[in-house]
């Protein structure tokens, strides 16, 4: 199970890094007298934290697929789940009592040396002589098959059965293939190699924790045994390893060699330090029951260090503070004892206990961990639902209102909100931005190997996606982060990208569609920018090179670029097989949001009539409207309310290099009706100014 809060996207479960673990309810009945129906059991276990994801088969052959969280290696086996059942239903848990053959009197003539005390805390071994290697009995094979384990031979199966029964990984070596009469637990030496059971020759790293005999590595500790010392049909004498290896050591070699095994899965999560002896004996029992043989000497139990878990103080007051409900002390005691915790009341107190942690619960170290155990077995759903008091207030982030404004404006302008990938290719990153890219170490593909430094390639991809599927009139916008490398920390800024192809107005029975133009995107950008307070908003033609020169512009708000937009350079659209005029706009919110949202302020509505005058002029092409507008603005005519272009005409009878422009002035005063003579005077000033720009008034 994944550990971010949201591990499921579409309900199919995260792509499992480990397969679901199979549990047989029938097997559980070896240890606890369950009366409950399997489906009810599945539900009860799930509500206690052993998530049963599916139930298959009927009656004795029912199988659960469970998802055990990473903190619960103790429940990754049947005995562990049986313990949960015993606590859940208040039923006795039967102990595992191994039946061993008689020990020969000979002292064990075999040595265990733990060189690496960090990597291996305990190594328990037993030697069995005179074993006959053959197939496992049917009952063992059947059980293994029921949890998807392939039976191999009675020795390997004994080890595997024990793992599924009680969770402790063990390993069986062919004793006669171990050289020098000893086992050494150590780190590998430079240049050492090991052929593992899967037949792969592996170069060992000096960081790998290994099991060696006097001469050579014979197993990758906690991960996989060696090929050359494995049990074969010829094996007669066996050494059984049952050890406790360190989580991090096992995890590192498992990852280094790309070997994830049932053993490594459990060691990585924390195996039971106290179980090595019992597991070892249990393997011996299974082997000798089917293959005969005698125990050679006593158990060899090498302890490098003790894993003593300190008792944890449990206060009933703290249970109440965290959970919000007063639980009866009896209930708390019952739950914890059923799970194997020992509670000793603190002297003179009835509400505080020193809790001894069982060796299989490496995840329980603190009072809060005990509180979770109590809550989980009490049943989460038994706690009442309450709402907390709160004295604070909602603090709105300053960008929230601005985001809302820009988003609703774009939606109203007919742009559909879209989301594209955050990753782009190196080529796209280079084409659409000068920002240094941030590369991924483990990208999903070459096309998605760097973090986007521009929203434009993503937008072009989405437009192309639509055009390729027959949608010809497309308007999209996307808001999101773009990324740039910098010496300090990565720069992450928010941009909006808008894109349009096809018609600006739809084609319908009433009127024909009109193709989207530069002035459509400019108008939309203007609508967006006008929501923000500014002194001057100007446009120049210096947009980036991926825009078509002359069909694109930058918007400068109080002198700083806040947006660029226009038609995409035809070479670029052609290269992307976009056979349409593509319009893109980029709005840099980090720069735009420096400005506050415009606060509307009421101006009295004029009570006196407005007067309009039209001016028809011919200008040189070099006289752009912005110059005309500026010149007229500079006249400072107080009553001039607007001065707008009404009609523009090029070609036809016009001399090339010139154009005809019809301009309309609107005069109005707030305190009087304008007189004919003053309007005439202002009109004359306007005419003079336009002539000053080289304009010729048309007859």
């Amino acid at each position, binding site marked *: 199970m994944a*550990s*971010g*809060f949201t*591990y*499921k*996207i*579409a*309900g199919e479960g*995260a*792509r499992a*890094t480990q397969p679901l673990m199979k549990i047989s309810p029938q097997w559980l009945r070896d240890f606890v007298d369950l009366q409950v129906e399997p489906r009810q059991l599945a539900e009860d276990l799930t*509500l206690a934290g052993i*998530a049963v994801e599916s139930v298959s088969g009927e009656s004795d052959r029912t199988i659960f697929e469970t998802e055990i969280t990473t*903190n619960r290696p103790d429940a990754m086996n049947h005995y562990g789940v049986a313990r949960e059942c015993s606590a859940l239903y208040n039923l006795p848990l039967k102990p595992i009592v191994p039946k061993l053959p008689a020990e020969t009197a000979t002292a064990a003539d075999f040595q265990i040396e733990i060189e690496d005390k960090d990597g291996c805390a305990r190594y328990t071994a037993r030697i069995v002589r005179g074993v006959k290697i053959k197939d496992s009995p049917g009952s063992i094979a059947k059980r293994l098959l029921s949890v998807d384990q392939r039976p191999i031979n009675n020795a390997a199966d004994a080890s595997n059965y024990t793992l599924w029964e009680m969770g402790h990984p063990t390993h069986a070596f062919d004793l006669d293939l171990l050289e020098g009469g000893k086992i050494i637990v150590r780190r590998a030496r430079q240049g050492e190699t090991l052929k593992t059971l899967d037949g792969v020759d592996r170069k060992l790293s000096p960081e790998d924790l290994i099991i060696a005999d006097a001469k050579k590595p014979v197993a990758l500790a906690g991960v996989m045994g060696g090929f050359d010392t494995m049990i074969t049909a010829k094996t007669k004498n066996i050494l059984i390893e049952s050890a406790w290896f360190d989580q991090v050591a096992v995890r590192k070699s498992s990852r280094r060699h790309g070997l994830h095994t049932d053993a490594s899965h459990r060691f990585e999560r924390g195996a039971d330090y106290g179980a090595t002896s019992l597991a070892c004996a249990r393997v011996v029992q299974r082997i000798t029951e089917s293959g005969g043989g005698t125990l050679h000497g006593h158990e060899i139990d090498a302890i490098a260090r003790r894993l003593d878990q300190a008792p944890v103080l449990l206060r009933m007051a703290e249970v109440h*503070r*965290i*959970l*919000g409900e007063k639980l009866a002390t009896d209930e708390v005691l019952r739950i914890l004892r059923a799970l194997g915790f020992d509670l000793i009341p603190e002297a003179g107190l009835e509400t505080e206990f020193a809790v001894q942690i069982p060796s299989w619960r490496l995840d329980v170290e603190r009072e*809060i*961990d005990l*509180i979770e155990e109590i809550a*989980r077995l009490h049943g989460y*759903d038994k*706690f009442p*639902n*309450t*709402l*907390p008091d*709160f004295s*604070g*207030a909602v603090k709105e*982030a300053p960008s929230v209102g601005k985001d809302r404004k820009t988003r609703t404006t*774009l939606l*109203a302008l*007919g742009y*559909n909100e879209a*989301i*594209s*990938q955050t990753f782009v290719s190196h080529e796209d990153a280079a084409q659409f931005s000068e920002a240094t890219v*941030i*590369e*991924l*170490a483990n990208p*999903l593909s070459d096309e*998605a190997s760097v973090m986007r430094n521009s929203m434009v390639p993503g937008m072009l991809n*989405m437009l192309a*996606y639509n055009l390729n599927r027959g949608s010809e*009139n497309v*308007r999209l916008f996307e808001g999101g982060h773009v*990324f740039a490398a910098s010496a300090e920390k*990565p720069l992450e800024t928010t941009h909006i990208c808008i894109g349009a192809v096809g018609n600006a*107005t*739809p084609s*319908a*029975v009433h009127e024909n569609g009109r193709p989207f133009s530069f002035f459509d995107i400019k108008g939309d950008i203007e609508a967006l920018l006008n929501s923000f307070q500014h002194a001057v908003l100007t446009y120049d033609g210096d947009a980036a090179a991926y825009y078509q020169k002359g069909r694109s512009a930058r918007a400068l708000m109080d002198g700083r670029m806040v947006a660029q937009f226009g038609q995409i350079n035809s070479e670029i659209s052609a290269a992307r097989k976009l056979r349409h005029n593509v319009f893109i706009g980029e709005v840099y919110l980090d720069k735009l949001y420096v400005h506050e949202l415009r606060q509307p302020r009421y101006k009295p509505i004029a009570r006196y009539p407005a*007067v309009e*005058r039209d*001016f028809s002029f011919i200008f040189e092409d070099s006289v752009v409207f912005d110059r005309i507008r500026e010149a007229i603005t500079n006249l400072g005519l107080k009553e001039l309310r607007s001065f707008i272009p009404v009609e523009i005409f090029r070609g036809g009878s016009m001399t090339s290099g010139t154009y005809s422009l*019809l301009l309309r002035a609107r005069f109005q005063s707030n305190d009087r009706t304008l007189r004919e003579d003053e309007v005439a005077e202002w009109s004359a000033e306007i*005419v003079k100014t336009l002539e000053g720009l080289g304009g010729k008034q048309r007859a």
Partner: protein
Amino acid sequence: MPKEKASLYTVPKLKSFSAAALDNAVENMLAALGAESKKVTDEISWKLFRDRWISRNNGLLTAVNELWLKAAPKEAKRDVGQRVNELKKQVEATVEEVKASLSGSAPGSDKLDRRDPLPAKAARRGAPGSSEQIDITLPGIHRPLGAEHPVIKTMHEIVSVFRDLGYSVQEGPEIETDYYNFEALNFPPNHPARDTQDTLFIANQESKPARDRLLLRTHTSPVQIRTMATMKPPLRIVIPGKVHRNDAPDATHSPIFHQVEGLAVDASITFCDLKGTLDYAMKALFGSSVKTRFYPSFFPFTEPSADVQISCIFCGGKGYRDGGRCPNCKASGWIELLGCGMVDPNVFGFVGYDSTRVSGFAFGMGVERIAILKYGVDDIQLFYQGDVRFLEQFL
């Protein structure tokens, strides 16, 4: 009705107050208005025109009041009244427009037909009062509207439920450090819990200390740490945002997706409060009949931790519908929706909160998952293609 020819229009008395008769009378009057407005050439003729139509004493509108409205039988009063009002507006507008067109046609201006009185325009547009036949069953003219993205819309909906409960929005970067994404959230280095996150890492980080190495945040939880590191309790925050995982895209997986995370810390926040808050939120999002169910889970940054299911919104929690198994909840009656828990004391340790004095809860949910449920989307990739055939369904 007698037709006006050469003589000046006068308001006729009405013999019938039927709709058809009224239509006819109004039409005749507007035709006269249009014709007369065209004859206005200067200020003087405009004033005459104005007085003739809207003078209070003897204007044509006053006559309309007398001859049509006052004379109308009781049952027709309302209809006549409405028409007279409408007429009044049109007459006044025309008078104003004619005036405006006079002032605009000063010497030096281009010729513009500013004297197109309202009735004529109205006729062209097919507005009421026009005689032109229009087929009102033709589709209307649609100005394109943009559709909200279903994921972002859903994200806003979730956020607003928590805003109503006093939660403030917080955001954070998508490129995070190992410290914020893992370590301070109690994912120790080399812990198997990290495996489950399918992290996308930023390249060339080897020279940095482990905690400063950059990666793409795998959840919005780092913002919990960022916020607590700068704000004192009590606090309630809700964190919407985009996250990334190393998951090859298919119908149920995506390398990008969105989460909303929440965090509440105060002097006496309890597990019961967590349950009550999420139960309330799920009812607000999915309807008051929805039930919630909590069961144990594991997240390194919460303890106790829980997964939350809601009763299946498709089959009402029954597990079957339309005579068969409910495919949405796989006949279980429950749908898994979010993860949550009480903030782990170790997390408080990382941000300098005193875990003996404050407690808190955190929760998180996948926005895509909720959007998929709400809208019945069957392929998560549809969210990230910008396909207008998909997006426009959410208008």
